[in-house]
């Protein structure tokens, strides 16, 4: 793996890295909000870990997640499942990421931000389908940033019926 930008000291590098991370999330949430689901797995490394976990489970150390994937392949299967096998009422999701905190370690870039996901079903008022915090780890992977790990811990544990699209 190439040297992380953050490993080099200095304000300029920080700003540049922050800008890259922001661009990454802009692209990530754009793809999801526009329901370009086929693009979603590509934001992750091949051996990624993806978890959407109720806060209670997270705090009590329970391993069970509402959505879990242990590889990019499983993310692809999630997309295939959504597009080809699942039945659900039509809806829109909008994702509103909050302030971004970026730090660097030897194992990659740590990024943490709040996330609000608002769901709108046809002919209904919007409601919150998920409200929580994302604990992400990004790495340089084939000239671009990718998520090696994404853990979305959500406070809104009583899900409004179903969680259809990913976070």
């Amino acid at each position: 793996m190439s040297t992380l930008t953050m490993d080099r000291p200095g304000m300029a590098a920080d700003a540049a890295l922050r800008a890259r991370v922001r661009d990454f999330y802009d692209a990530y949430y754009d793809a999801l909000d526009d329901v370009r689901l086929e693009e979603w797995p590509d934001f992750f490394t091949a051996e990624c870990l993806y978890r959407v976990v109720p806060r209670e489970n997270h705090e009590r150390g329970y391993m069970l997640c509402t959505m879990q994937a242990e590889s990019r392949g499983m993310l692809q299967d999630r997309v295939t499942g959504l597009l080809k096998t699942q039945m659900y009422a039509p809806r829109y999701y909008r994702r509103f990421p909050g302030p971004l905190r970026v730090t660097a370690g030897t194992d990659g870039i740590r990024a943490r931000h709040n996330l609000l996901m608002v769901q709108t079903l046809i002919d209904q008022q919007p409601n919150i389908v998920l409200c929580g915090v994302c604990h992400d780890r990004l790495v340089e992977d084939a000239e671009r940033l990718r998520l090696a790990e994404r853990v979305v811990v959500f406070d809104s544990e009583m899900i409004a019926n179903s969680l259809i699209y990913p976070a």
Partner: protein
Amino acid sequence: MSTASSPASRDVTQQDRPAPKRWTGDGTSQVPYWVYSDEETYRRELERIWYGPHWLYCALEAEIPKVGDFKTTILGEKPVIVVRSAEDEISVVENRCAHRGVKFCQSRSGHTKDLLCPYHQWAYDLRGELIGVPFRRGVRRQGGMPADFDTAKHGLRRLRVEVVNGVVWATFSDDTPPFREYLGEKFWKHYTRVYDGRKLEVLGYNRQHIPGNWKLMMENIKDPYHAGLLHVFFVTFGLFRADQKSAVDIDETGRHGILISRKGAQEVNDVTADMRNFQGDLKLADPRILDVVNEFPGDETVGMITIFPSVILQQQVNSLTTRQIVPTGAGGFDFHWTHWCYADDTPEMKLRRTRQANLFGPAGFVSADDGEVIEMCQQGFAASPDAEALVTMGGHDIAPTDHMVTETAIRGMYRYWREVMGL
């Protein structure tokens, strides 16, 4: 009381409340839609079913291993505390202070020495007995409780409890028969196939609110007809298909049911030909979710038990959950999933179970669509209370079958429901 001559100005009093609607047809092959939306009927269900002679699911024993451990939950609409009150005793008490009715315990779970209401600090022991009333004798000879105040008469309301192979059950009624009798011998056998006395362990929770009547969730699990059609993911990978050797069993009363099935292979055949959206060529990029091991006696891989009225005990391949129903009105219920494993499972087995949990829950490949379709049912029923649902798949009778092309278990539930509701 006012007369009925001017309805616009009339006060709505207790006596004016309409009686629950009448079920006009006979039998249970047609279910009128008002059973899903009429609030009076729902109130009657709370009294006669949820607070009547029925065992309600509360918790897994493993959630409260040590004396003083507790969790809160809701039975019917009543909040309760499930607490280990002694080494080999679990108490279930209403989460409602005997003083002024405060729902005093607001934590989901925890550990405590006693049960304390924050409002005026009345304290109860772990069995719900009142043990402390601040200023009971007044302050400097002023005030205080009357001389005839008897703490023994002001404890928390205590429910009858049975702990059965790791599962905590409670009932509000003195008329409920012992749990094993309540299940019946046939269902005792189904129950103990998975809850066989081994120690259980919690893997985690999922919670969702489904805007549909609570009975629709019971029906959904009693209905194998939909499972072979709606759940394309399952059918595609052979986890549940209409041609696999299977059965529907019903207890004598009709209230409990089980779907039994066996896993097959991914294949295209004449049965899947009836499915418009069958995905015969679907491949998984990472098929670990289908890494299933046989762990129970016999070759059945699916046992979905509905224990009337409060819970679904799910064994779907290696995924084990209790799915508690908490009604919130005629038109909705909360669904509390507790995913569990056996305490002596290997780490691989635990991981396998959490992986397969992606099939279920609010984001499950096959359960999200159940939540969606139940909401859609409610949308269809609400505006036409007097229309009727047809429940005639497999005929009109109520009997166990050795196939899945039937709605017999739904008919069974409504036969019992009509009896107990007197409708």
